[in-house]
């Protein structure tokens, strides 16, 4: 019995040994926080596969970034905040220079890590999610909500609705409901939508769905009675598919439902089958489908049997999002190498690269992402970089793009961003940087 105890103690000690940093080499360490199990695995898996495959591609095709190989380690968070924090602590110090950046794929983990990453000087990339006020880089030096925050998403969704009803002035008196995942993630867009409701004169009703969202009958019965003109869906995991099915059951037209870009992937609609036809969702710039970069992945990664995904799922919406996300991180490192030299970089140096990242149309084409992305330019005052989106619709077999590009109105989002981030700065005694002096 005592031996058991001793073995346990030994095991605990050796657990400490695991944490000691690996030997230094010419490698850049990048952690992947993913969730391939649990309630949200359905959406977490394709995303994590996209991320892993792109890093693999950079290693296999280019031999790393300017000769610096990427060293990747995945850690399972299960979408739980405390597990996410543990993963971050486990991985942040690995590799010769520590983690280049971190990408938690959970708004909850983002909130929990925001302060820690600032102390540890590791940038946190939250592409298309995270805290919307962190767009303000003057306060949130290490947060990068690239390509669009939830407030931009809300703005784009309302722009699209305005276009469908025939003009912004027609929004007056319309009823728009928000069916949201009852968590920080789902609640983020509410203040923005309230601002827009006041501005355009539409009636806005938030309807919460309790985690994980398997039971939505009462919400949809209420919608059936209330007959909103549009229902915005801010769901994740099982909640999306269930929402589509319940909408079909109460005969709410799917054409009047608009999901956020996290509610518009294949796993969200396939469980509902034909009932999902007509359902719309925002696109975080890119959609599903294969582009030149996929050919590279198939040639350099899958042909060598190193692919993470089932080959049939390459090119799905969330797979592509993972890839874009990984690409932006890699490009940030490349940018930082221009300044700091072609060697493994610290998180602080990569932060500089992110803040000065400027991807032109030509560069995007060169990398094979043409058609997925618009140019993106990040600066100290704008950690979002771009706020464009389109709308796609499920036709029963695939996602079809049905709109032109929209750009979120900064005049709508900016006051809210400044207001909330100033509050955070005051709470945390952060002296906002003077962005005019940053190079």
């Amino acid at each position, binding site marked *: 019995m005592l031996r058991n105890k001793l073995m346990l103690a030994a095991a605990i000690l050796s657990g400490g040994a695991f*944490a000691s940093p690996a030997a230094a080499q010419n490698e850049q360490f990048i952690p992947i926080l993913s969730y391939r*199990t649990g309630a949200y695995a359905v959406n977490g898996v394709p995303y994590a596969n996209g991320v892993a495959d792109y890093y693999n591609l950079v290693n296999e095709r280019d031999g790393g970034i300017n000769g610096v190989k990427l060293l990747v380690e995945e850690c399972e968070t299960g979408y739980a905040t405390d597990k996410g924090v543990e993963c971050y602590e486990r991985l942040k110090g690995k590799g010769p220079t520590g983690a280049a950046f971190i990408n938690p794929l959970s708004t*909850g983990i983002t909130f929990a890590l925001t302060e820690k990453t600032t102390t540890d000087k590791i940038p946190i990339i939250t592409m298309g999610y995270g805290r919307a006020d962190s767009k303000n880089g003057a306060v949130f030096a290490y947060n990068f909500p690239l390509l669009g925050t939830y407030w931009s998403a809300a703005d784009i969704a309302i722009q699209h609705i305005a276009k469908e009803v025939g003009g912004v002035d027609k929004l007056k008196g319309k009823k728009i409901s928000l069916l949201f995942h009852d968590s920080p993630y789902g*609640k983020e867009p509410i203040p923005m939508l309230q601002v827009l409701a006041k501005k355009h004169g539409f009636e806005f009703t938030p309807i919460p769905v309790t985690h994980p969202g398997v039971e939505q009958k009462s919400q949809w019965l209420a919608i059936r009675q209330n007959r909103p003109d549009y229902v915005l869906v801010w769901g994740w995991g099982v909640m999306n598919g269930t929402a589509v099915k319940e909408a079909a059951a109460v005969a709410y037209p799917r054409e009047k439902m608009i999901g956020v870009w996290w509610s518009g992937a294949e796993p969200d609609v396939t469980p509902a089958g034909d009932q999902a036809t007509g359902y719309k969702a925002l696109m975080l710039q890119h959609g599903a489908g294969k582009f030149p970069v996929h050919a590279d992945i198939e040639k350099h990664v899958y042909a060598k049997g190193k692919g993470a995904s089932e080959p049939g799922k390459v090119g799905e919406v969330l797979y592509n999002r993972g890839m874009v996300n990984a690409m932006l991180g890699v490009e940030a490192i490349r940018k930082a190498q221009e300044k700091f030299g072609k060697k493994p970089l610290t998180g602080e140096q990569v932060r500089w690269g992110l803040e000065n990242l400027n991807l032109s149309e030509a560069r995007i084409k060169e990398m094979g992402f043409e058609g997925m992305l618009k140019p993106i330019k990040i600066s100290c005052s704008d950690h979002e970089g771009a706020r464009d989106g389109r709308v796609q619709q499920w036709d029963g077999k695939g996602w079809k793009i049905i709109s032109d590009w929209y750009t979120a109105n900064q005049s709508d989002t900016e006051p809210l961003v400044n207001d909330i981030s100033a509050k955070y700065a005051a709470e945390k005694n952060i002296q906002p940087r003077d962005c005019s002096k940053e190079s």
Partner: protein
Amino acid sequence: MLYREAGQFKTTYAEDMAIFPIRQDRIALGILLGIAFIGVPLLADFDIWPFGSDYLLRAILLPFLILALAAIGVNILVGYCGQISLGSGAFMAIGAYSAYKLGTGVHIPLTWLDFAISIPPLPVLLAILLGGLTAAVVGILFGIPSLRIKGLYLAVATLAAQFFFDWVFLRVSWFTNYAPSGSVNAPTLDFFGLNVGTPIERYMLCLIFVTAFAVLVKNLVRGNLGRQWMAIRDMDIAAELIGIRPLYAKLTAFAVSSFIIGVAGALWAFVYLGSWEPLAFSIDRSLQLLFMVIIGGLGSIMGSFVGAAFILILPILLNLIPTQLGVPLSTETITHLEFIIFGSLICFLLIKEPHGFARLISIGKEKLRLWPFPY
């Protein structure tokens, strides 16, 4: 040979009633406390293995200490008083959110009276303790049904508290100071002008809390109150017949337990997470705490620590081992395997020793007494 009490004579009642009557136990405890209070900070200060990075401190020791504290709280209720509770997560949340409110200033406008209750931001230490107190008050409230409902029915009934408070902290934006996302940030940890920021300072802070409460609880359960709880646990009707008031005994157990859980919740939020949402105190947390108590041993303070260590560290180890050994398994498979092995180990332990690690330790002690000549 080493563990003999021969020759240790007790000449006063006080000695006879000591928490650790055997000298070897006292020495072992002294060494343990010495390591915890002096050894760990020293090693960490000089970056000596295994404290080269803060991983061990920040990701293992810190949550371990806080959850051990919460487990002690749960143990009072479940282990000493026999009232099964699945709502511990909610009481952690109550502690965390009320400490947050008190630490950032409370303002309740009573417009119809033309009056507002305003409390300026309190010092963090006070806020944490008052957070525990709030949890204790709510605990008493939710303890009242225990006078009528028993056993597993009570366990499910306590889930009402769990889900209700999950909802309250999500929906009532007053508790989150109207943060748009409903996620809140802990105030700066300022203790009497001392800013607790680095991992080692946070570790020491939690260690002081845990040690203080462990000593307090150990003395509480040896005293009158603890005996009343145990009498209720063993058979409440019999206890009532010999003059123990179930109302008083059960509600004090709920109060003390919720207080400690509340303090642990406040520490979890302030010291470990720093920024949190109600999901951090979900039903999974309640089940995790119950596991710690049962695996560690019902009715044992020592067991709470061992249980917390086991439940917290085992999954992390199971997750780490394959990557460290370079076994080519996907994260997915590793996590599934982790689940399977973790579940199997729990079943195995429950079958081998349903009374948990505490029982194993006492059996170990008995054997050690006779060692090496067990006749």
